[in-house]
């Protein structure tokens, strides 16, 4: 069993929660860019979550989770002292951290959480790190302070202009390039549409862009193939070949379609679990 040591609400809106979980074996090995799969109890799904932070001495892993459906809502309700039944990791290939020169780290929405440890590692590797963090509005902007502490510069964007630059993260990236700063690589993590638009923006510039894919997963060990995505025309299993890929080669439209496969069931899970009729009331 894996104990929740700390719980923190990350934004004004209650939908994004940070949990620090006791998982010493994972904490010993994890590197930026990797993820874990958690299961709350016997009846739960296996939910993949990126590692936001880790403490090798304390033996803890920090995850950030956004309430988007039945299982994530359940995890969001977990309190300090409660337990995950299963917590497996580290999974996936770590980010390729080296000194590229100047790197722009983009986190959109919840994506700020996974980009944080990567930005920090890039900074430690000697890069100049400029971060662009964005959200729909100021109420759901997360980890601004943490990102500021490890970046040379932070650009905040919100869709509605309630904080920082009004617009998308691509506008933030554009503003950096407009200043004439020579950027050597971009990390972009967030919703698939966001990663797609960043990739479309940087492709004509020939600017190396790494994205982190979040397809539907089951085992996370390369056993089921649920997580397949298409990269440069080749099928890859995101859980073992990724989750990071060259953004210029990923078929984002396919990825978006695949993420929508269980929409009807996801609705049923919410309704079915909230009534006491046992079998689920949606049918």
């Amino acid at each position, binding site marked *: 069993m894996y104990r929740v040591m700390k719980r923190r609400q990350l934004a004004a809106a209650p939908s994004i929660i940070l949990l620090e979980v006791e998982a010493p*074996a*994972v904490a010993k*090995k994890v590197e930026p860019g990797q993820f874990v799969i958690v*299961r709350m109890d016997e*009846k*739960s*799904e*296996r939910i993949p979550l990126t590692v936001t932070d880790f403490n090798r001495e304390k033996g803890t892993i920090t995850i950030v989770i956004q309430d988007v459906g*039945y*299982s994530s809502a359940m995890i969001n309700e977990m309190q300090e002292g409660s337990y995950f*039944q*299963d*917590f*497996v*990791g*580290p*999974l996936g290939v770590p980010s390729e951290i080296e000194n590229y020169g100047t790197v722009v780290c983009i986190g959109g929405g919840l994506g700020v959480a996974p980009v944080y440890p990567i930005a920090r590692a890039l900074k430690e590797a000697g890069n100049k790190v400029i971060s662009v963090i964005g959200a729909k509005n100021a109420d759901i902007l997360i980890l601004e302070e943490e990102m500021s502490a490890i970046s040379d510069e932070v650009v905040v964007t919100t869709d509605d202009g309630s904080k920082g630059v009004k617009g998308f993260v691509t506008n933030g990236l554009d503003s950096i390039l407009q200043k004439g700063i020579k950027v050597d690589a971009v990390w972009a993590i967030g919703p698939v549409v966001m990663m797609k638009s960043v990739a479309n923006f940087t492709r004509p510039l020939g600017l190396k862009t790494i994205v982190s894919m979040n397809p539907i997963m*089951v*085992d996370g*060990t*390369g*056993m*089921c*193939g*649920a997580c*397949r*995505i*298409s990269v440069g025309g080749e*099928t890859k299993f995101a859980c*073992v070949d990724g989750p990071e890929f060259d953004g210029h080669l990923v078929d984002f439209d*396919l990825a978006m*379609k*695949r993420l*929508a*496969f*269980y929409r009807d*069931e*996801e609705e*049923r*899970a919410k309704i*079915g*679990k909230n009534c006491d009729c*046992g*079998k*689920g009331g*949606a049918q």
Partner: protein
Amino acid sequence: MALKVPRHDMPCQDPHVRAHNFEEVALGYTPETAVEEAGRCLQCKNPKCREGCPVNVLIPDFIHKVSESDFLGAAQVLKVKNSLPAVCGRVCPQENQCESKCILGIKGESVAIGRLERFVADYELQNGTPKFEKPESTGKRVAIIGAGPSGLACAGDLAKAGHKVTVFEALHVAGGVLMYGIPQFRLPKEVVQTEISNLKEMGVEILTNQVVGKVTSVHELMANGYDSVFIGTGAGLPYFMNIPGENLNGVYSANEFLTRTNLMKGYKFPEYSTPVKVGKRVAVLGAGNVAMDSARTALRLGAEEVYIVYRRSRAEMPARHEELEHAEEEGVKFQLLTNPVSIEGDEKGSVRALTCLRFELGEPDASGRRSPIPIKGSEFELPVDTVVVAIGQGPNPLVTKSTEGLELNKRGNIVANEETMETSIPGVFAGGDIVTGAATVILAMGAGKKAAAAMDNYLKQK
């Protein structure tokens, strides 16, 4: 006299009923039937049946005990060679193994060895009180990677020999394919879990959620005080056909389809939170046990039409005979001498049809086998909304690629000594599907036992 008594049928759930539930299909012999069936055995002095069993179960001896109604005694005899009789009695391809060699089979019907094995093992699971005499500890520690039949069998024998055994399993439960692949209606998960809790009582420690190659490695285990390591990671990597349309929504690997249903209990969604979605018309590509399991699972999840699409003819279908029969009784349809060429999608990216090509059997080739050749212009569309790819699995590279010095063959399987199962790294042994490629439960179990014997030797000399 024995010849006159016909082989006793296995009582089964009605096909029309069982095609809609996940309860076990075969109901099992009653004690009376078992004793009568055991009475058919001629107790051959030179029992051919044993030669057909990959682990040489003491077949006449255990059957003799059954005929005397000493069922717990029979279980003891069975377990001398077979650590998982409740499983093997259910899933062994008996018609190609023990029963194919039974002397009664020459003129009539063989003794129902598998059914008797299942009966005895179930009887013991329900009525036996497992008693283990704690062996004296040798002080040696062994790590087993993978809790499938090979790893579990190896763990059991090493624990009996007094070694401290720790099993590292990637998934959240132990059992391997027995838990995530083979469906509940063919192998109840309770049976597998009882076998596993027996191992735990013997002192075997099972650590789940441990992906070796990520959280630790073979060399790290050796450096951290394990005196020997066994790798039994199976054949868990799903193959796809590499045809257009394979990434459409509605295309599953059999592994995903079965894992969602069995391991995650998707058939109880939404009580269990993992969804599994099956449409009205399903095509399953392949014709082995995995394909039959997928097809029958699809029916139970509510599909109206389920097709097995297979390039060769019926005679070549590699599934157990019983599974083929059961599938057919339940209403699975066979599209034989038919090969998928591409999967067609709709505007939303979901499967709409499977385009296939018909084949005919050509002249016998050098090996005497008539190989299928495509018929020109025979392309047709099979309207389906779900496709399950069940054409085989390869070795998962997580462990093998992360283990320096481990010799692999061209296909990525571990090279191991056939007698001792030792690999190219001293003290590291391997067995089961990761060595042979996808095979059978009994072969995996046998390899685990073989390795255990050699590891015991190795540890004594160390």
